[in-house]
């Protein structure tokens, strides 16, 4: 039995025993290549679940749908290691109770799906340990280094050009599991702290605010980057932030549910290289 069939039948079992009320997984999309989130509530519907190399989205975002977990019941969700790290962060930030989340873990290597052992977020500690040891994405590092090689002025021009494309659709925020604020700072309008205009200045404000709020929290799932309708390489911003916290504080976001948020804690031996 392939992993897709195995997970389908386990999901059906969880639903029929009442262990979970809902399974959030992937289903067929509007084209042959596309996969989309599906929400399965009955054992029969588990037939719709698909698991293959196209299932790249981080579905943990949906767990924060208002009221979903407030009845104390459990929900099952299909997650890659990046999504499991999101669960750890959300637990550490008191946004959900990880006991209510049953995980169908998987990973994709060269287009092939591999099952990950475990059901609770804490079961996957070894997988996340391996991911941390492997380091940040070498591919992204290469792309980021191209930017490091140019002068600061050229880099500024590069981002100005990229941000000038932003239309403030907030798809990057909406798709992100870490962007869970019920009222994002850019939507606080009494007074309007951040301009809503998507001129270049406004777009800088927005993207910088978001980058700061995601530093040490982003799990590099790539959701924002894939969602941006104007193709701004948001992955490079995320990568840079992740590299900063890793190099400075040996911090890898979402290692476990007990991990303290990097920007809300300090250690006596934290480097103070930026303090004169």
């Amino acid at each position, binding site marked *: 039995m392939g992993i897709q069939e195995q997970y389908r039948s386990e999901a059906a079992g969880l639903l029929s025993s009442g262990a979970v009320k809902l399974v959030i997984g992937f289903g067929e999309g*509007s084209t042959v290549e596309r996969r*989309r989130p599906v929400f399965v509530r009955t054992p029969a519907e588990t037939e719709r679940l698909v698991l293959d190399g196209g299932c790249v989205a981080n579905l943990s975002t949906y767990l924060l749908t208002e009221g979903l977990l407030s009845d104390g019941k459990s929900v099952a969700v299909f997650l890659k290691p990046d999504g499991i790290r999101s669960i750890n962060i959300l637990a550490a930030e008191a946004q959900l109770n990880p006991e209510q989340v049953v995980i169908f873990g998987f990973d994709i290597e060269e287009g092939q799906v591999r099952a990950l052992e475990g059901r609770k977020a804490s079961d996957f500690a070894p997988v996340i340990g391996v991911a941390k040891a492997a380091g940040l994405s070498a591919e992204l590092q290469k792309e980021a280094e191209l930017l490091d090689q140019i002068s600061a002025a050229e880099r500024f021009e590069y981002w100005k*050009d990229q941000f000038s494309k932003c239309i403030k*659709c907030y*798809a990057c925020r*909406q798709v992100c599991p870490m962007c869970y604020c019920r009222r994002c700072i850019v939507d606080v309008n009494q007074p309007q702290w951040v301009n*809503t205009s998507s001129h270049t200045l406004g777009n800088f404000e927005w993207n910088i605010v978001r980058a700061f709020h995601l530093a040490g929290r982003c799990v590099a799932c790539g959701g924002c980057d894939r969602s941006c*309708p104007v193709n701004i390489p948001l992955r490079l911003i995320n990568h840079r932030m992740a590299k900063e916290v890793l190099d400075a504080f040996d911090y890898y976001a979402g290692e476990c549910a007990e991990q303290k948020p990097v920007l809300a804690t300090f250690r006596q031996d934290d480097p103070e290289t930026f303090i004169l």
Partner: protein
Amino acid sequence: MTRILPKNRLDDCIAAWRSAGFSVLAPVRRSDLSRFEEVERSEDMALDLVLTERTIKDHFFPQTEPLIKYSIKKHDIDTQEMVPPERKRVFFGVRPCDASGLAIDDPLFGWDYRDEYWFKRRDNAVIVTIACTTSDDFCMCSSVNLSPDSTKGSDVMLRPLQNGSGWQVEALSDRGNALLGPISSILKEGSDATASTASVPVRFDVDKVMAWLADPASFESHFWKEISVRCIGCGSCTFLCPTCHCFDIQDEGDTYTGIRRKNWDSCSFPMFTMHTSGHNPRNTQSTRWRQRIMHKFNYYRGKFGVNSCSGCGRCTRQCPVDMGITETLQAITNLTK
């Protein structure tokens, strides 16, 4: 015999229009994004795209636009309108859906008063449309009573020749006719066959959709919840749409000086309908999605006699969670089978 614009004379054509005082805008691909921008040479044009990612709407109703400058001194308030300058522009290589989008929005911007910010640009623009010979899985013009060679909203229609050497030219309006003046020596007579237009399947039954939406019982249907459950409520389907036209007015500056701006807004956002009291009449994504569909295929038609969708398919093409309007309209069609 019809008039032909030879492809190898495109640069002369651009030069002729430019010396007649026009800016020429065409599809370009720059910084990993396809959109309409001013061009000086034909080699910068990306005419082989099915559709640009951004619409030409951006050039008539920009994402952020200054309306007035204000300054307040003691008891004096000084305001200065910032109506855009009159600038003659040719939009070359527009697709029929985007051209239609402009025509769909015209009545809205001219309804209770004439929006000068829209019409200053509209009245000075000439839309040169190229009929589509290719399409993708998301194009749906044929489902909304348009087609890959519909002329709605266009001033000049170009139909690609089968042999790829140029386009058959047809002027559709006075403005279109006038635009052909400066290039009359470039155009030649010919009888070359035109290429067949893209075949875009009809994806839903728009009459059934309209009938179902008009039924008052549909408003509270459970259908809206089912169809919208994975929508994450971003604004990208509305912002990339050639007909979506909602905006918000914002003052930027301080108490004494500043600029009042018109910024795109989206019915997908909870803030769109949030009252000062904190009450929100559309407080779930399903009610917001319903509004989007109702507005396009029911309310807009009621007011202006036309649906507010030109079938470009962008809302489905780029939706981060593979939603978009097509599937909803297909589902409604099936509901009423």
